[in-house]
Every structure is written in C-alpha cells, then in structure tokens.
C-alpha cells in the first residue's frame, strides 16, 4: 500500500483525516499514485493536477524522503521508501499568498 498525506483542504473535500493509503498496481510513480488516489477519491480529480492536461497545479508540490519531487517526470519511479510503504508521498499546498 502506498501512503499519501493530503493538505488540509483536500482532506476536508475527500472526507478523510491525516494519511490515506492506496493500492497501486505496477510501477509506483507520481502518475500511478495520483491515478489510484483519484480513482479512490473522485472528488480530488482536478484539485492536484489539471483535469484535462494532468499537469500538476502550480501551487501544489510533491515531497517525499525530504526531497522535492515536484519537477520530476510524472512517470519516474518514486523512491523505494515510498513504493515500499515505509515513507509517505506528501502532497503540499505551497505557502503563498493569503
């Protein structure tokens, strides 16, 4: 199981608290994790990445294992600690504006 930590506003939308877990078939990448997350929580479609282009929304970042993975290819494998469930993928709302 892949662990994902959502920002507070998205937890409210999805009706979840703290960390969620998703089953990801095949290789564990940003894209496959987000596909699984959106399938489990359809109300999150469009909130993390664009509905149509699937590009990450500008003020959303992806952190894991103390690294900023936001600019990595969405098809690059996530760190082994994430794919093994040892560490979560953090979805972060950037600190900006009011």
């Amino acid at each position, binding site marked *: 199981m892949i662990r994902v930590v959502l*920002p507070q*506003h*998205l937890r409210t*939308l*999805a*009706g*979840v608290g703290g960390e969620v877990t998703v089953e990801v078939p095949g290789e564990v990448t940003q894209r496959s994790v987000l596909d699984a997350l959106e399938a489990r*929580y*359809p*109300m*999150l*479609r*469009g*909130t*993390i990445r*664009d*509905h*149509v282009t699937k590009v990450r*929304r500008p*003020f*959303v970042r992806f952190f894991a294992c103390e690294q900023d993975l936001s600019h990595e290819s969405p098809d690059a494998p996530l760190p082994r600690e994430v794919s093994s469930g040892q560490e979560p993928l953090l979805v972060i*709302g*950037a600190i900006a*504006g*009011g």
Partner: protein
Amino acid sequence: MSRVRVLAGTRKGAFILEADGKREKWKVSGPHFPGWEIYHVKGSPVDPDRLYASQTSSWFGQVIQRSDDGGKTWHQPGTPRGESTKTPDGMPKGESNKFAYDSSAETGKPLTTHQWYDGSQKPWEFKRVWHLEPSLSDPDTVYAGVEDAALFRSTDGGQNWAELAGLRGHGTGPQWQPGAGGLCLHTIIQDPVASERMFVAISSAGAFRTDDGGKTWKPINRGLTSQYIPDPNAEVGHCVHRIAQHRARPKVLFMQKHWDVLRSDDAGDSWREVSGDLPSDFGFVIDVHAHEPETIYVVPIKSDSEHFPPDGKLRVYRSRTGGNEWEALTKGLPQSDCYVNVLRDAMAIDSLDECGVYFGTTGGQVYASADAGDTWSPIVRDLPPVLSVEVQTLA
C-alpha cells in the same frame, strides 16, 4: 410570513444570512467551506432549497458544491436524487467538476486563443467559475460563467458540465482580452418570456445575446463607447461590469460598464448612456427594483485604479426614471473615511412587497435596506471581503 435568505460569497468562505420579512433580526451561519474563495452562491428559482456554490482556490482549482436543504448541508454533485450523499463508511460520494473547453468539430470553429494584455494571442485556460445561474424552470439545470470566458451548462444538478461553444466560436474570440480581474464571463440572464433567449456579459469583450438557446450568439454592444480600446466603438472589447433586467420588461436592459451607465430598450440591439448626474459613472453593480421596472440602483466608485467610493462616502444611487436623474441614498451608510469597493456580483434585490436591497463590500460588510434603499443597516460588519450577494425570497 415571508422570509429572506441572503447568500454571501467571500474570499474565505460562504455565509448564509436569514431573517423574517421585517428584515431586522438576522441569523448568520458560516463560514461554509472556510478558507476557500466562494465566488458565487445562488438558489434555484423553482426549488429554493437547491443552492449551487462556486468554491475555488488558486491552489486546488474549482469545486462545485450543491445543497438540497437550503444551505444546511452541502455536497459535491454526483449523487442521484434521493440517495445519501455519503457512503456507508461516511465518505463523500461526490465527484469533481470538470470544465473542459469544447474543441469538437461541431463548434465549427474550434477556438484556441484570445488576446492577452500585450496584444499577443494566448490559449484559453480554465481558471474558475465566476457566476452560477440556475435555470428558471428546472432545478437540475444550471449555467456557469467561467474564466477564461466561456459559458457552461449542467443538466444533472451540477455533476457534468458541457460548454455552449457557440459563444466562443462565433468569431470575435481572438479579440477578447482580460480586464484587471481576468477574462471572465460574469453575467448570465435568462429571458423570462423568450425561453430561447439569453444574455451574457464578459470583461473585456462586452455583451452577447443568443436567441436559439445558446447555439449561436451575437455581440450586442452598439452604442457603447470605450476610450481605453483603439476603436472606442468597436463591436467587442468593452469592459462590461454588469447587466440587469426586470422580469416584467425583458427587452429593457441596464448596464454598468467600466465607465458609463447605459440602458437598452431593444434587448441590447442598441444602448444609450444614462449616467446623468452620477458623481462617478464608474462602478460594478447595477440592479432593478423588484416592482418598479424604471427604478435602478448603482454604487458609484472612483476610478481608474482607486476603486473606492468618491469622497470616502459610501452611497447607493437610485434612479426612479430609468437613469439620467439620480438620488444619493446615504442613511445608515458610512459618510466619511470609507474606502471599500462593491464588486460586480455583490448586489441583490428581494421581491417582498416593500422591496429589499442588499450589497456587500470588500470591507466585509453586508448592508440591507428593507425600504427600497431609503435607509440601510449592516447585517454583518466583519466578514472576509465579499465577492457576491444573492437573496432568496421564501414563503
């Protein structure tokens, strides 16, 4: 006894303000969706318990929220009528709300760019829903005016949205450009008599009308003069801020433009200025009295760039002659050191016998008048900046 329900959208959530017909004592609920920008909340005219809200965020995009109980509870659309909006384990069942521009061959002219501030062409990019207009006849049908400017419609209670692409596709799209607030479609008026007729307004493109249910559109900007565009009398490019109509006189339209207050007596085919003796003919809101089709309201604002009331006095101006002659309404409104703005969707009119008028400010006040504007008092003083105000008159 009749009641009123005021729906206020703010920069940090939605608030619902309720009172009986006297409109003296108010009950405030909210914030709903705290921390999110609520551009607009509006109720269905045929089912007043059905509300739609545009919840938006620069971080997390667009969400449509719906209430089926007058704002007590909300959910993202996606649940068939009559079913629980949550799964047995308590999770919301709603789905997100996709606003994808139509690029199908049926539009005839798939339109991919509009004009940017520097004159270059920029691809259309969805940003948010500015205005939600529920259908006059079906609570599950609702229109959405969006940024970048386009018109969408849902016929399943807000779950799925399809663009009425004839508006962007009619030919002038590449000449539309954003105003300071963005390229937004902010006004949607359904004609109460001609069921296939609808009016929309876009900053900065102008006003448009369809007479065939949204398939084809034409610009209706003849008579508008805007010195801030190269051809002041151009067919499109005008920064229309708001249009209002009285249901009993649907061919008469009133417009607050970036500068100038105008009226049309022929469903927008031609316009004439009626700014008259206003202290400033710049402003955002305009509305019409519920029972007097020639009584209209504006809030003059100083511009360019200041965007606060002239002389620090917050004054609603009323014309009982359909324009040109205006009176200042000041009782109960701050008459010194007031520097708030009143944004384009932030005025509303109830339909009680003694017509009520409401408006919200960027300073967080929502003012109400229960006597057609003669006197005012704040319902609330300290909300986040108010983006929109609507009112429902309830039996």
